[in-house]
């Protein structure tokens, strides 16, 4: 039984002809997850409910929905009704939500089956998923390596081919960076493209939910389901339905592409720069123009990110106080004790550090010096991107500065996790869509990702270029040896 290695069209056709049932896919997914247990991709499995749902789908007409009956993994900071949602934190270890995120509703309406909740950095704060209260997930290409973060569990389960679809969230690269480290396709849509209702907020003005998949086409298919306006989220964009696959397969002749010099500076390993150069050549050979451009502010993005993300996080995470939900310390001696002890014990180190710095950055006059100034520079940075998009269709560069590093690398440098995301953060700052596409493997046999950035609400053109390259490069992206599996 290896249906999940087939193309989505093949699976759909088998389901349609009733040669297989949704439950076959769901059972296979759980077998694979079980076999890959040591990857630690999941915090909670939804086995019983998933099987029930699959059974129920047997009574339903499949129609033309390519996603019908397919298992999907959901990052554990996305709220699922009656299914534990922990944010990989002790403070929500036993939290069972009483409502659904908008994206979860959409997945359900499209008859996909939620298979479980994936591992991540605690409250999405981190870049290696090692801040998870439940231990870090492991990279399927090399179990000694990180899967990246914060959507490390979702990246892992896709890379390992447990399931075809996963949801990630991206505040400062948390979809694209792990996608790059694990050799999968990860898209952070334009801010506002996908509703944030039900996404546990880390940094509200940056957070965005996006699809993580094994290939470009399936990624666009999943975005078709996720995207769209939501009256429950005032920051969701008033853009009607569009088919994100519509440009896939189209030629790229005449396409104008920019590479900011900063993205190819010596902060990136030579090996990765070379791979991006190769892509540049390939594109030029096929009729696209690729120019190096100078862009202001890119080198300041991490600083802006630290200020905005930590500032907002300190406020967003204030609600975890042990009163209405979540962990609460036993018999606090008074109210202050309830707050202090609950939050001390409930949050992990990285989260506490960020909350404290964020509180400091907003306190007294600091709000003006730091946060408000960061918002102002952020506005300038967005305008800098707008300028580039006046002349170019897309921006490309490497997704990460290195390939995935060792799980045992030290974690005690508080700046390190931010620097891992130096190339992906500017996109969150400007609210733009960005995708990571596997383009090569390093000497360490670990995947290398290309970062493709589009203009606001132009995900379709990103998919066009990504699928073009995917086809041209034709990499073997399945780390699984056949004998490892049933």
């Amino acid at each position, binding site marked *: 039984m290896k249906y999940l290695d087939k193309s989505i069209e093949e699976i759909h056709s088998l389901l349609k002809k009733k040669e297989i049932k949704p439950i076959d896919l769901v059972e296979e997914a759980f077998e694979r997850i079980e076999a890959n247990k040591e990857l630690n991709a999941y915090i909670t499995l939804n086995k019983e409910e998933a099987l029930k749902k699959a059974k129920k789908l047997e009574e339903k007409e499949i129609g033309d929905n390519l996603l019908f009956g397919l298992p999907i993994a959901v990052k554990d900071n996305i709220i699922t009704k009656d299914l534990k949602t922990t944010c990989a934190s002790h403070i929500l270890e036993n939290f069972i939500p009483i409502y659904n995120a908008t994206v979860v509703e959409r997945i359900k309406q499209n008859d996909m089956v939620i298979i479980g909740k994936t591992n991540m950095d605690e409250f999405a704060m981190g870049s290696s998923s090692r801040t998870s209260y439940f231990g870090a997930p492991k990279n399927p290409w090399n179990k000694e390596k990180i899967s990246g973060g914060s959507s490390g569990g979702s990246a892992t389960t896709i890379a390992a081919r447990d399931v075809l679809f996963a949801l990630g969230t991206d505040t400062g690269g948390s979809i694209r960076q792990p996608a790059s480290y694990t050799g999968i396709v990860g898209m952070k849509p334009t801010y506002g493209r996908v509703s944030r209702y039900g996404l546990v907020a880390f940094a509200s003005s940056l957070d965005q939910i996006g699809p993580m998949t094994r290939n470009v086409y399936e990624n666009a298919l999943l975005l078709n389901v996720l995207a769209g306006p939501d009256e429950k989220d005032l920051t969701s964009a008033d853009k009607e339905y569009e088919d994100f696959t519509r440009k896939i397969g189209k030629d790229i002749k005449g396409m104008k592409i920019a590479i900011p010099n900063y993205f190819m500076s010596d902060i990136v390993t030579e090996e990765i720069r070379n791979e991006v150069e190769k892509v540049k050549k390939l594109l030029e050979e096929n009729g696209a123009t690729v120019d190096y451009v100078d862009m202001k502010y890119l080198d300041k993005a991490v600083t802006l990110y630290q200020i905005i993300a930590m500032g907002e996080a300190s406020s967003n995470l204030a609600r975890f106080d042990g009163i209405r939900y979540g962990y609460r310390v036993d018999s606090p001696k*008074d109210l202050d004790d309830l707050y202090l002890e609950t939050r*001390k014990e409930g949050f992990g180190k990285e989260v506490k550090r960020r909350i404290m710095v964020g509180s400091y950055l907003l306190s007294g006059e600091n709000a003006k010096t730091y946060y408000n*100034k960061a918002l102002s520079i952020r506005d300038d940075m967005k305008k800098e991107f707008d300028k580039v998009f006046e002349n170019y269709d897309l921006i490309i560069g490497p997704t990460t500065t290195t390939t995935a590093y060792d799980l045992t690398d030290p974690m005690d440098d508080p700046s390190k996790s931010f620097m891992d995301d130096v190339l992906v953060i500017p996109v969150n700052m400007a609210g733009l869509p960005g995708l990571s596409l596997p383009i090569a493997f390093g000497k360490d046999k670990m995947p290398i990702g290309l970062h493709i950035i589009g203009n606001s609400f132009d995900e379709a053109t990103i998919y066009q270029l990504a699928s073009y390259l995917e086809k041209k490069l034709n990499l073997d992206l399945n780390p699984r040896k056949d004998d490892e599996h049933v």
Partner: protein
Amino acid sequence: MKDKLTKEEVLHVAHLARIKVDEEEIEKYQVELKQLLNDVDKIKEVEGYDEERMIAPWQKDTILREDEPGEMLNPKEVLKNAPKHSGNYIEVPIVISESEGA
């Protein structure tokens, strides 16, 4: 530039954040928080600060909701996740100090 926050500074932010810190942690935070603050201090080098600020990247008019009631929770659901409750109420240890807010 000093490379450590003072103990008082750490205690102040820990109080704002309502996170208890013990002696050992204070020392660690003195260094770690300072490092992050040094990082963000780079913003001071960036020129240009005007009133135009991005409070949400996708800036449009806020679409206002019509004033029509929707579904509500029943008190049982409200209490479901509350670690401590009594009757229909969520319970906390007695609040002595007055609210700082409105």
